[in-house]
């Protein structure tokens, strides 16, 4: 299968001197869903942000369909519009209604007319089951609803890869279900995605592949079965610490 995204020897050194990512490499194939797990500070969010260059990686290469995207000459806005991103804290545009949140990118990046954009938006809203709240302001939505709108906003751009940055960590436990269901639905439809998550159960059920990061390096990776059957001490320890929390 064709590799949609490949990361080669990525390093990120923050301005304060923190070496957050120390040589991470992995490929994501078409239609594959990859879960990145790991404890806080292991560099998993940094990897994700480096992929669409919200953070510039210090070294290494990021290729989208074989095209190097972390050079100063790449059209970064075009690259970003091809990579959907969902944030931990939703980051909906507070001054816009739900439907306008979604049409904003379509109208100003994809240059669609208002009518076309709205038709497109209604389609994705239906997909995430938020059609009935299309005229609400983000401030009046629950956390789960906000996150589903955020997913719809990213989906509307018809991205080639979706990046989820801990999409459920800011949600109450009873709201997580609806968001995970939406993401699972996308995975089933064959959307290529990388999910940074703390939901071990979700990673096991949905992800085709799991990457365990620790201290800025990939400590273990493989089929989702490694969660039930960890090969390294580090992952074992991580999994047991999580199950203790539960």
């Amino acid at each position, binding site marked *: 299968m064709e590799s949609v995204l490949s990361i080669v020897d990525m390093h990120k050194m923050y301005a304060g001197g923190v070496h957050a990512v120390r040589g991470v490499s992995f490929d994501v194939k078409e239609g594959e869903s990859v879960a990145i797990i790991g404890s806080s500070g292991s560099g998993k969010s940094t990897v994700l942000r480096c992929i669409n260059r919200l953070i510039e990686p210090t070294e290494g290469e990021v290729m989208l369909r074989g095209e190097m995207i972390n050079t100063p000459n790449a059209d970064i806005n075009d690259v970003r519009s091809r990579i959907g991103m969902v944030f931990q804290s939703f980051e909906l545009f507070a001054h816009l209604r739900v439907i306008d949140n979604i049409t904003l*990118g379509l109208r100003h990046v994809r240059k669609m007319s208002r009518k076309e954009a709205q038709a497109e938006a209604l389609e994705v809203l239906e997909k995430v089951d938020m059609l009935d709240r299309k005229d609400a302001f983000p401030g009046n939505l629950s956390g789960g609803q906000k996150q589903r709108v955020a997913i719809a906003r990213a989906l509307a751009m018809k991205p080639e890869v979706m990046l989820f940055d801990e999409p459920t960590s800011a949600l109450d436990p009873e709201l997580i279900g609806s968001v995970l269901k939406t993401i699972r639905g996308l995975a089933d439809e064959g959307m290529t995605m990388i999910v940074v998550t703390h939901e071990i159960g979700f990673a096991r059920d949905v992800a085709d592949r799991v990457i365990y990061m620790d201290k800025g390096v990939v400590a273990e990776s493989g089929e989702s079965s490694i969660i039930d059957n960890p090969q390294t001490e580090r992952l074992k320890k991580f999994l047991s610490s999580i199950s203790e929390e539960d």
Partner: protein
Amino acid sequence: MRETAISQTNSPFKHSISRYFAIVLLSILLVSVTANAQEYRSGWDVVNSGVTSDLFSVEGEGEEIWAFGENGIVLGSQNSGATWTQMESMGPSNLSMSDSGFGAFLAAGRDGTVIIKIDSGSQWEDISFDAGEEDIRGVSLNGNSSVVIVGSNGSIWKYDSGSWSDYSISGVDLLDVSFLDSERGIAVGEEGAILFSDDGGVTWDYRDAPSEASSSRIIDVEFYSDIRAYAITDMGEVMKSSREISTPVGFLWNMQYFESEGGSSNLGVNLTSIEVATTNKFLLSGTEGYLSMSKDGGNIVNRQMIPLDNLTAFNDIAMLDGFRGIAVGSNGSILITERAGEDEQVGFEVRDFSEFGNFVDYSKGMLIDGLFATLNIVLFGIFLGFFLGVTLSMMKTSPTTLKEVAQKRSLILVRLFGAVSFIVGFMFLDHLIPIIEGLGLNGWEYIYAPIGIINPGGITGDLQFENFAYLILGVSLLLLGGLFISANGKYKKSELEIFGRTVIWNPWGVRPLNFIATIYTDIFRNTPLIVQFLFIHFGVQIGALIGDPLAEMLDGSTGLITSFLRDDVLSNRACVSAIFALGLNSGAYQCETIRGAIAAIPSGQMEAGRSIGLNYMQTMRLVIMPQAIRICIPPMGNEMVNLVLNSSLAMVIGYSELTRKAKLINAVTFQVFWSYGMVLISYFIVTWTLALILRYLENKTRIPGLGISGGN
């Protein structure tokens, strides 16, 4: 149906009721008009001159007055102008100019005819000379029997102790001359020529006319005293020269702007002469029955009623003291006044300003005018300030560093650009060095160099803003060039050891747009607004720089908005200056307010905007700014209220806004508490309305869940 029928039959009756009503109203109106009509009467009285020829010139000393006219007519009066007798003609020439002083009287014609009367006891003497081809245009006594005469082609003759000498200069056509004493005199002429002599008319130096009058025809000059001289042009302009600290009269000339003409410098009449009664009181005469007087140095010029028809061309005025005077004109017209020509009020009740109702009745009109003037500068100031504020705040928050600019280009290109900008910067500074050296500064005095290089010639020179741009660009390009040449492709910050301390030095982290905006806001936030007003109006003269050309562009357009812009905004220089001072100042403060609001937007919003592919400016415009503007409505309200209140400082540049009107009301009524109190109320109404509008806006634009604003 029945009802309709009734109303139809009633309708004639209704009609007659309204007619009765109208008649009653009219009669009430008629009754309420007071019996004794209120009117103005001319302050001038007609005197019989006994001649019908045109009179050109008049002079008076004490009770003795002489008028001169067509065909050598000389009229004399020994009783302040009440009765006149005609002297024997001194020849066929028109006596078109005259002067008096040092006990003597003098008259002259354009062909070289000159007659003089040395003292009250003596007779008129003919001291004519041969002027050749030249056209005599101005005479002045500078001694009991000493005369200076000027004319075309720079001709200047002096008559002293019985003989004529020629002190002509070349080039310019002279039109008038006036001596203050035996030494100091001013001559004026075509093309804005002003000459000064301090040796009794032997040598003459050029002086600069105000730039507005640099090509005008200056027809009359009055060297009135040690502290004041006036001159007029035939286009209806008045210019004056005052002593300023150690600079004597005659050096600096300023155009007079007439508040009574809406701030224009042009009276819109053909003037013929000016007569100065006291330092700040002068009378003007003109064609088409024009006589006018100003009591405040030209700020307010009141046209006077005359007891003759408006075809009379007045040629000259002579004032015997501050109040008594004589005007002469065409067809032997002579007018005399005992009140400087001021119109007499007949049948007017004397207003009693000790009664509040009367006071309000008198002052409300002026206050409303002032209010509109204030609103005028405030509205334009707010627009300018907001535009600047948004632009500057975007510049201040721009994330692009030199590193990012350089990184995108190849190293060779970066170094090449560095070399070019280094050379260009060096050339700019090299151009400035002789100018700075020419300023003659020492040591710490160099902090004033920026002012010196913009205007090295002082009041007589032009403003050279390009020099300031050369300085800023030169220094910046030199530094930038040095940095770019030294680029090694790493763009890292470096650490310097200074006195044992590690200093982090990161020139690549400089954000150029932020840098420019910071210079701007620092300048405007660290200087007092009142000084900005004075500097922009009197120093930069932004009205002449920007207002006049723009007004010229709109010349002739008849649109409602364009003609308003031209007549009420752009052609009023004080108004343009006030708008710029308020707008530029407010822009600096609004910038900081908006920047604060931008900083309050979570960085995730920018990330979210960028992550769907919007570029930086799109995200700013579509995502960040709409939220930031909502957040900063309350502090912006503060800023706008401040702007309204600060607009009162426009009075220091003579813009007749609300506060200045209060001063003018005080000058008439002396009711200080009432006038300033009413101004306070007027300001309160404006700012409170503004605050209400902003409060409404705030509620209207509130987004649920965005910010803590109280309520839902």
